[in-house]
């Protein structure tokens, strides 16, 4: 029987699906629920130093083929998040702590807190497209990214993943900076800069105006990033963007991802999405003679 187990660096997962940051992952209760639903790992909402309310509504636009969101990085702050992590840790699967910050020092501080809370790995959000001073403003500059990753690496001993933005022509340079700084994996992609307008109201729908596009609309974009990254970097890649069925997941893995994350798919396909990806992937692997997921990683390059 084909095995779905994978490892990202030294992190072992029962299957290659993870919950993406920002979706049902702000509370212990929801993290535990997603783990029970079958995810191989769960990533927390991106947590910052201070509590943040996020933007006023609307924060989400629903499209036929995805969503545009500008939540504004709402989060309870790293102190209050201790309680959630304490409970979430009891989960069957690794809990990966996502963090955002505006300086290398702040990133290191948050990372060591997350490690203390029992996170199995850190995911650096270097890629939020709609929060001024955070996210992709940092993540498009290879030097800044290098510094952030190196400082976080020296501040903690658990694996450090860097989540990158597709909104730049310098993705590969940024990824190489992550690798050079000792980053353990690259997570690609965060949302794509986008906007929705209401013709009748004559203004942008999101209160923040700009937002980030996710879901099936961006799958071909994410797939391209993962494919290009696989050709250029040697650390593992986690594929994100529009994954909502086994075929999407297999495509990402063949492009070069060692695992995938599911965000919008939770809203669009329900929490069953993790189990149905795994069942479908296993059937595909048996049909096509793949014994393990690792044998599929990057085969589209051959």
């Amino acid at each position, binding site marked *: 029987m084909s095995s779905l187990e994978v490892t990202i660096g030294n992190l072992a997962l029962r299957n290659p699906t993870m919950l993406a940051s920002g979706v049902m992952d702000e509370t212990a209760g929801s993290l535990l629920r997603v783990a029970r639903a079958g995810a191989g790992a769960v990533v927390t909402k991106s947590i910052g130093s201070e509590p943040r309310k996020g933007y006023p509504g609307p924060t989400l636009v*629903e499209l036929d083929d995805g*969503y545009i969101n500008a939540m504004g990085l709402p989060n309870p702050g790293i102190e209050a998040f201790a309680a959630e992590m304490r409970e979430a840790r009891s989960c069957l699967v690794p809990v990966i702590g996502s963090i955002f910050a505006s300086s290398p020092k702040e990133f290191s501080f948050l990372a060591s807190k997350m490690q203390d809370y029992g996170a199995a790995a850190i995911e650096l959000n270097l890629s939020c497209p709609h929060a001024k001073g955070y996210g992709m403003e940092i993540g498009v500059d290879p030097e800044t990214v290098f510094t952030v990753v190196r400082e976080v690496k020296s501040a903690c001993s658990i694996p450090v993943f860097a989540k990158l933005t597709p909104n730049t022509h310098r993705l590969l340079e940024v990824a190489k900076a992550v690798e050079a700084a000792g980053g353990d994996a690259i997570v690609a992609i965060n949302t794509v800069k986008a906007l929705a307008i209401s013709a009748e109201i004559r203004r942008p*729908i999101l*209160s923040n105006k700009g937002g980030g596009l996710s879901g099936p609309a961006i799958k071909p974009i994410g797939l391209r990033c993962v494919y290009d990254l696989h050709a250029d970097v040697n650390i593992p890649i986690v594929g994100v963007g529009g994954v909502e069925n086994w075929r999407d997941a297999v495509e990402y893995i063949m492009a070069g991802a060692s695992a995938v994350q599911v965000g919008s798919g939770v809203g669009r396909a329900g929490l069953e999405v993790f189990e149905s990806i795994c069942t479908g992937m296993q059937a595909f692997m048996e049909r096509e003679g793949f014994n393990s997921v690792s044998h599929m990683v990057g085969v589209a390059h051959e």
Partner: protein
Amino acid sequence: MNKMRIATITSVTKEAAGITTLRFRDDAEVKPGQFYMIWIPHIDEVPMSASYTSAEKGITIKDVGEATHALSSLKVHDRIGVRGPFGNGFMISQGRVLIAGGGTGMASLLPAAEAIDPGRVDVLIGAKTSSEILLLERAKKVSNEVHVSTDDGSMGKKGTVVELVQEHLEAKRYDMVLGCGPERMLSALLKVCDKASVECQLSLERYMKCGAGLCGSCVIDGVRVCKEGPVFSSAELRKMKEFGSSKRDECGRSVRL
């Protein structure tokens, strides 16, 4: 998938002090107990239960802050954005039904009452004082058994609507209680129903951002109120540690109710 539509206000009705009903045309099919996300341009987007579910939909708003104030101030021909309907809605069951609403809770309960044949539904409405008793006339159209309670005794029975429910459950056999109102009331209501061994379905409120089952801001014990709720059965409610005790604020912090 629930794309935003722009709707034009067709009528504005002042129901009571600080309570306004807006009607607008929207073609979506809405079940009693479901809610919309309502966009008030330049202000905010907030969840509102459908208080009318026919072709001309309605919402009934209590003015408690910026968004609800702006909504309450809209006029005929003004425009709002609507997404939805979201959530599960009430399951209209067989047998005798008791409906118990506090405050704007009546807004989502009345469409449920109207969906039940008149002979088998009794309605209990609670408020602090008589001027806050909501939608009484509309309730009387669907049931001959409409009773009121006020904290100050200015109308109907003096006391809470939960006490009124308890009296009814003791006096008469009901197969189902439908409730909506402040969570402390709902938590007391669940106890009363459990004691009388009558099933209930209660509609909860949590801080909602996406409304679409995605962001997780509305979770109670990991359950999304916007998706798996807002209406929960006795069995579901009994399992919820946070029910009646805590909720999440805009930042996702746990706060006491």
